[in-house]
């Protein structure tokens, strides 16, 4: 099955996206900001649609939509962070507004752009078989950058996610670190966009990490396990999609969600066993 060149490229994409996805996904899950990550993922479409419109309708040929995705992901992450830090009471309503405004902007620009129906589908739900050599290089670069930043700030992220007040007392620049975390989430979503699409990115970002969290008790182990699960779901999903001729992104997301539902009942049993082992 994996003799196919397209599938080989797709396989590399899965393996390259997995480490950063597992690491950032774990931070998203323990910090309980999955809703924010979902908002960033959906607002990506706004910037992407705008760049595609400029490229196709206005002749700005050099402008790759991926830069629009980057721009809107980072902008929405910083906006969400600012709202969280300053207007926490109304946070959920504002997140919903940014979420839908980003999607709406993207849809309008895409509707104004001629001949983008297939591309729209691929951006929304991903098409890993589109991956090119330069995409793989970009994935590797982003993956390396994300892992390097988390390695440097690991203990500070641990404090931020576990106890913001402790981090403040220890002199950590909590606001800046929080914005950095959201920016890393934004970069990870752009990274995942090509593998699974903007709408399904949140599935790969949160489900493997949540599953890993059921069976680990250190953040660093959770990150490792989440990365391994992410790679596993991507590869198995890719294989299944090829076998049944299903869309790869949707197959990967469905496989991850089904695994989570199957393993969830084991959580209680595992926690009991763990507690007994430590007593």
């Amino acid at each position, binding site marked *: 099955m994996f003799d196919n060149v397209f599938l080989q490229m797709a396989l590399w994409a899965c393996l390259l996206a997995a480490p950063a996805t597992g690491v950032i996904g774990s931070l998203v899950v323990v910090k309980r900001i999955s809703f924010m990550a979902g908002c960033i993922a959906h607002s990506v479409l706004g910037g992407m649609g705008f760049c595609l419109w400029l490229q196709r309708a206005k002749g700005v040929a050099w402008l790759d939509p991926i830069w629009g995705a980057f721009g809107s992901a980072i902008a929405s992450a910083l906006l969400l962070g600012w709202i969280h830090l300053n207007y926490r009471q109304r946070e959920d309503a504002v997140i919903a507004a940014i979420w839908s405004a980003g999607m709406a902007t993207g849809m309008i620009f895409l509707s104004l752009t001629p001949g983008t129906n297939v591309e729209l589908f691929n951006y929304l739900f991903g098409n890993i078989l589109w991956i090119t050599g330069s995409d793989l290089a970009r994935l590797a670069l982003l993956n390396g950058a994300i892992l390097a930043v988390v390695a440097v700030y690991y203990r500070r992220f641990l404090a931020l996610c*576990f106890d913001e*007040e402790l981090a403040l007392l*220890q002199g950590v620049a909590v606001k800046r670190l929080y914005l950095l975390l959201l920016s890393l989430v934004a970069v990870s979503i752009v990274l995942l966009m090509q593998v699974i699409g903007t709408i399904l990115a949140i599935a790969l970002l949160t489900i493997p990490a949540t599953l890993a969290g059921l069976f680990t008790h250190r953040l660093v182990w959770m990150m490792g396990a989440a990365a391994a699960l992410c790679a596993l779901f991507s590869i198995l999903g890719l294989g299944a999609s090829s076998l049944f001729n299903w869309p790869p992104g949707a197959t990967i997301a469905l496989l991850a969600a089904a695994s989570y539902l199957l393993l969830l009942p084991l959580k209680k049993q595992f926690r009991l066993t763990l507690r007994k082992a430590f007593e």
Partner: protein
Amino acid sequence: MQIEIENLFFSYDGAPLLERVHLQVRKGEFIGIMGPNGGGKTTLLRLLMGFLTPNRGRVSVQGRVGYVPQVHRTDRDFPITVQELVLLGALSQCGFWGYPKGVLARAEALMEQLGLRDYRSKPFSSLSGGLAQRALLARALLGDPDLLLLDEATANIDLPSTKIIFELLRSLRGKKTILLVTHDLRAIIEWVDRVLCVQGEVSSFLPKEVCEHFALGLYHTPLLRLRSEKKREPAHV
């Protein structure tokens, strides 16, 4: 002075929570904070830590601050071991390669002192309430704070843990300034130098004054203050 508060006023969404607060705490004092729920005890601690800004007035705190929150306010599902949690108390000393050897040794000594040595590699989520509270105290002490703030650190925990925590606090008496929010009257009688009653305003009492009023079945801070003022009147004449 370790703490100086002058004419503090603080409100949440326009509703006054603390007003006309004047307070001075000397270095090395052991102070108990009591008062009804919603009276502003935790808010007072958060103002001292700088997490909240007063609407009016001035708050001045000297030295490093260590904070022990109520255990139920921490995320008990968080993937962290006891040792990792304790070490976070010295995060400001952590470099790229990890914690200095001195910090690691101090963390070990604190875990030993608080009876946590056997739990160092275990998940925080697997600890009982009392053990978890001890881990949070070890974390606060690792940073060698000058001022230690404890928010109901002995509420709803087992007796051995309460005993261990109070024995440690006794050994710190005079060396560190301690502010302990508690509803434990026995702790107030036995341990503290002064009691602050927080209920909108902050009133300062000696432990024996508080005990006399509890003996009469009184708890309401204004009543406490009224009786205390009446009692003191002859002295001013």
